């Protein structure tokens, strides 16, 4: 109680002398001030010792921030407060450490990718465009990614969701244990291995040729365990009371699952599926092995070679010319935007479908 009171009025109310509950407190802006000083010192040290990497500057600033927090709090307040504030500042420091690479990645991709990203780039293929030519586009790769990922989702989502329903609602005994075990194993399969498996099985043994669909099959193997895992967790979160309430109304078990359990978990399941889609949208290896790559537009995923966004980026990078690098950055930006839009859509659906509590 006294904490919140001193928090609200840190400077106007001097501590009551002899009070057990109040003690010396730093003003509320103190952590921010320490952070600013730490950053300034980090920059100063970096300049003084001529450290070329800004990462080093940042790390020095972070270390100074944590150290400075401890020392000032220990001097101005007391040791318990000092420990508390060091823990807080460590959490902040780790947050910054985690966000900086992400921010840097998005910022670099945006800066380098946005200048070539226009309507032309999105609506043209690479047909007849040489490595040193300006122009060219990503349309064929977008088509390829959409079709391959769409087909993979079409196969993997029903299988994954139904498997999860089996595991949570019906699965007992050895079969359920075996399924769980194999899903766990599948989670760890590297994408190149799943690509090789489909290459060996679909193309070499069954004799089909390279196509977008072959790539989709490899993506299915990567996607199923992610969908199963996330759906399973979401279904487990549905309270048992709801199942019992429905069963006690004389609703058969399958209708209970369809009309009560799934709608309750729908938001979370959708989020999980979207994350799985985002994961497979960035896979290059299966495309490399099974879809073969194609600079021209091929709308048919079942016949002939296609391209895809990650493959396109790889391909342009290998060409090594300035124009190709520029196209690779733009394609990377398109891929990031695609994944981000998917995530936003997933969030939207999750919020829209979440069980409502409004009074």
């Amino acid at each position, binding site marked *: 109680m006294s904490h919140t009171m001193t928090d609200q009025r840190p400077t106007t109310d001097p501590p009551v002398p002899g009070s057990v509950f109040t003690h010396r407190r730093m003003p509320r802006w103190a952590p921010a001030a320490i952070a600013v000083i730490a950053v300034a010192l980090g920059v100063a040290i970096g300049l003084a010792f001529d450290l070329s990497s800004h990462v080093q500057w940042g790390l020095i600033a972070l270390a100074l921030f944590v150290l400075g927090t401890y020392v000032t709090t220990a001097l101005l307040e007391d040791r318990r407060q000092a420990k508390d504030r060091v823990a807080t500042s460590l959490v902040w420091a780790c947050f910054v450490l985690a966000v900086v690479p992400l921010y840097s990645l998005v910022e670099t991709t945006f800066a380098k990718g946005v200048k070539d990203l226009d309507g032309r780039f999105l609506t043209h293929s690479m047909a007849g465009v040489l490595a040193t030519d300006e122009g060219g586009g990503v349309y064929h790769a977008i088509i390829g990614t959409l079709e391959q990922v769409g087909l993979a989702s079409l196969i993997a989502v029903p299988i994954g969701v139904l498997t999860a329903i089996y595991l949570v609602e019906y699965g007992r005994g050895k079969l359920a244990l075996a399924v769980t075990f194999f899903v766990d194993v599948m989670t760890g399969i590297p994408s190149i291995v799943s690509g090789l498996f489909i290459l060996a099985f679909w193309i070499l043994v069954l004799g089909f040729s390279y196509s977008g669909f072959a790539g989709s099959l490899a993506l299915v193997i990567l996607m199923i365990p992610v969908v199963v895992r996330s759906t399973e967790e979401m279904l487990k979160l549905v309270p048992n009371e709801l199942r019992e309430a429905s069963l*006690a109304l004389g609703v058969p078990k399958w209708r209970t699952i369809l009309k009560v359990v799934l709608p309750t978990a729908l938001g979370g399941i959708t989020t999980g599926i979207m994350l799985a889609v985002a994961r497979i949208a960035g896979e290059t290896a299966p495309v490399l092995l099974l879809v073969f790559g194609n600079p021209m537009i091929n709308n048919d995923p079942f016949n002939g070679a296609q391209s895809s966004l990650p493959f396109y980026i790889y391909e342009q990078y290998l060409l090594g010319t300035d124009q190709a690098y520029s196209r690779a950055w733009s394609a990377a930006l398109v891929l990031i935007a695609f994944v981000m839009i998917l995530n936003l859509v997933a969030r939207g659906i999750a919020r829209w479908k979440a069980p*409502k509590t409004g009074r």
Partner: protein
Amino acid sequence: MAKRIDVSGLTAYYGPHKAIEDISMTVEPRSVTAFIGPSGCGKSTFLRTLNRMHEVTPGGRVEGKVLLDDEDLYGTGVDPVAVRRTIGMVFQRPNPFPTMSIYDNVVAGLRLNGRYRKSELDEIVEKSLKGANLWNEVKDRLNRPGSGLSGGQQQRLCIARAIAVEPQVLLMDEPCSALDPISTLAIEDLIGELKERFTIVIVTHNMQQAARVSDRTAFFNLAAVGQPGRLIEIDDTERIFSNPSVQATEDYISGRFG
């Protein structure tokens, strides 16, 4: 409308553990029967065997007979789903479906089981909510989520949901234990009205409640922890609370138990 329940030699297990043993009793139609007894004595388990909800629990199984007007609920070929449509249940914690509105909650049992016309459903919703004494409080917000109601209102919504499917028997598993005294009173009044139409069985830890609402009372007890629960006696509520024939019942009711 209301039916009689005859239980004979009923034993229920959770896996290898015997939860209740050799229970026989008769529940009269259009009356309220209360089950009292210490925690873990198998009252709720016994209640759940009456509409085949016990076997929903993994490992749950039952031996013995439960006759509903001479038809054995555990006979061969009996569909537990059909049994549950005839014998409704209200749970300890209010559990309205969170994805559904108040309206949809009330008709959930009907809509999940078949097709009804909109006008028919409207009628049933009004009738059931009036039956559960909730109509006046929610009639202007039938399309709001059911989880937005207060605990007592939610529990009455669950009762409305249970009586909307027109069961013969209504089982209530400590329906007031999560509610305040005013909501409890509302539900007790409701039980008094509902017994005109349904056979009601109620599990309660509150002996005053058993004395207030029930016509007959059954006392359950267990010999020791880990032992199966047994029916000690069942009699008119007045007799159980004034002059029970078994000493253990008197000890429990007067608080001299354990």
